[in-house]
């Protein structure tokens, strides 16, 4: 696990991302410089289509910039092999998606265990640690339930537990409050905020909900692919 405070988990330097479709070019991000440090919660605020998700996917190395440089743990994204990037995501990154994206055919405990298996943690250790993570968020009693039987609030806690279970250095959350009622939405941000404080994790939240601002160490506004 990388906990060197001199290395940013992810950094974009003057990044432009252009998508081409049927000969038409769309500029999703334009000349964006952005970085996230460990132990801070950064909020990316912007309306739909402003480029928030594109920025997150660049931070995770799912895409390469059209121009500029993207670094993950101090190394250019292009310099990683696909398997090295996969390992980084499995061991160093946690993800929270708008609809939580839990695997419906797996029990709650298995959902959390799975990411640790991806990180190469032995099954027995992974299950024990997954159980501890679920307990931490007060949902240990739901370990053997299937996601389909959980409330939205319970699902969000499972999603957070899954994101931190592998000892991530950075969590990327895409509209984590989008499908939740206000109260539940703020609860998930509190969980993430707690992880920043307790575990020193760097968290990037992409959202259009400016009520999250009060939890953020930094707030950036994105509009039409330009970071304001």
């Amino acid at each position: 696990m990388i906990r060197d405070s001199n290395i940013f988990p992810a950094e974009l330097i003057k990044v432009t991302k252009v998508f081409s479709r049927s000969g038409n070019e769309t500029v999703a991000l334009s000349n964006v410089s952005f970085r996230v440090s460990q132990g801070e919660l950064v909020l990316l605020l912007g309306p739909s289509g402003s480029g928030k998700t594109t920025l997150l996917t660049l931070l995770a190395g799912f895409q390469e910039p059209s121009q500029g440089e993207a670094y993950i743990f101090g190394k250019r994204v292009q310099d990683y092999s696909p398997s090295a990037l996969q390992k980084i995501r499995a061991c160093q990154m946690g993800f929270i998606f708008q609809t939580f994206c839990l695997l419906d055919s797996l029990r709650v405990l298995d959902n959390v265990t799975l990411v640790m298996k991806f990180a190469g943690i032995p099954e027995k250790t992974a299950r024990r640690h997954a159980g501890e993570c679920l307990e931490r968020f007060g949902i240990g009693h739901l370990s053997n339930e299937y996601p389909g039987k959980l409330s939205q609030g319970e699902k969000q806690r499972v999603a957070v537990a899954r994101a931190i279970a592998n000892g991530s250095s950075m969590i990327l959350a895409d509209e984590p409050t989008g499908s939740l009622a206000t109260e539940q939405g703020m609860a998930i941000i509190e969980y993430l905020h707690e992880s920043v404080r307790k575990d020193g994790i760097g968290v990037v939240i992409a959202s259009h909900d400016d009520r999250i601002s009060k939890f953020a160490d930094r707030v950036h506004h994105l509009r039409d692919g330009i970071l304001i």
Partner: protein
Amino acid sequence: MYALKILAKQYLRFTITIFGVALCLMLMLFLLAIYYGVSDASVRYVRESDADIWVMQRHAANLLRGTSLLTSSHGSVISQVPGVKSIAPVLFFTATVNVPDNTASMHLVGYDPRTGKGGPPEIVKGDTLRNDDQIILDYAFAAKYRIKIGDKLPIRDDTLTVAGLSEGTNLFVIQFAFITLDEARKLLGFPSVLSCYQVKIEPGSDPLSVAKNIRSVSPDFAVYDRLTFLNNNIHEAETGVMPLLYVVALIGAIVLTALLSLILSVYVLEQQKDYAIMKALGAPAGFIPRIVVQQSLILAAGGMVIAILLFDLMLNAVKRFSPTISAESSVRQILIVAAGLLVISLLSSILPLLRQRHIYPLEVFR
């Protein structure tokens, strides 16, 4: 196991697929059983004969297909050859017989019941021939036409009484029946004709040398030692209708591959979102392919177990309702089909494996 959980989620489809696989495998097992059953039965008469040398008419090479005509005088010549201990004349010809409400063809074998040479390899019911007006039928033939011991069977201008039933005499397309040599000649209308001589050699003599000696006394003879003649007949049996069984089995295997491939592709499409999530969360490159291959192997193994259970029932049913079909099953055949199934499983995984390669983690962010 995640692969099994995905399959079991749609349990009705899972069950139908397993049974579909099982039916294809049963077809393959059944065709193999027929192949081995017929191959064995076709040559059992030759294999269980105690003849050291077979003498036939020039150019004739086997009993199954081909005509061989010799005369009694040839026997006198063969008997004189050094190393020959005894000879047994046998006459083969195909005849149509009247069976209850029908007619049927049989391969009649005329032999000398006093020596028993050239007779049925095994009598499973009744007795051997005592008189010229008796006949021994193949067990499957008798069962098919519901003929019992003691029944009368009109053949050409004669009527013979069923004295016994034999096994190892079912050639699948036709069956052997045994009568006395004299009766055979009478039915055929040529008093001194015969098809071959089964030769016993003197103890200590070399069959190949004796065969060479017989060959040298007359250009009319085709002379074979025991092993060569057996191989000739096996070759004839296996190049007859048998390749057709392989073609049908191959078609079954292709259908099974297509079926599995289709089903696995459907599972990949249904799990597209889950696989995209896994890839986004950092699933190692081999994780999802392993799930696909595991699913293929689970479906194949499940189908194999069901197929083996049903195959036993099917064999018994076939023996009961269609006794002329010779089918022999063995562990070796099951292992052959299992090995084929393993290959089919891996082949059928190729298409869904290619499909899953085009699932991207970015899909989760849409």
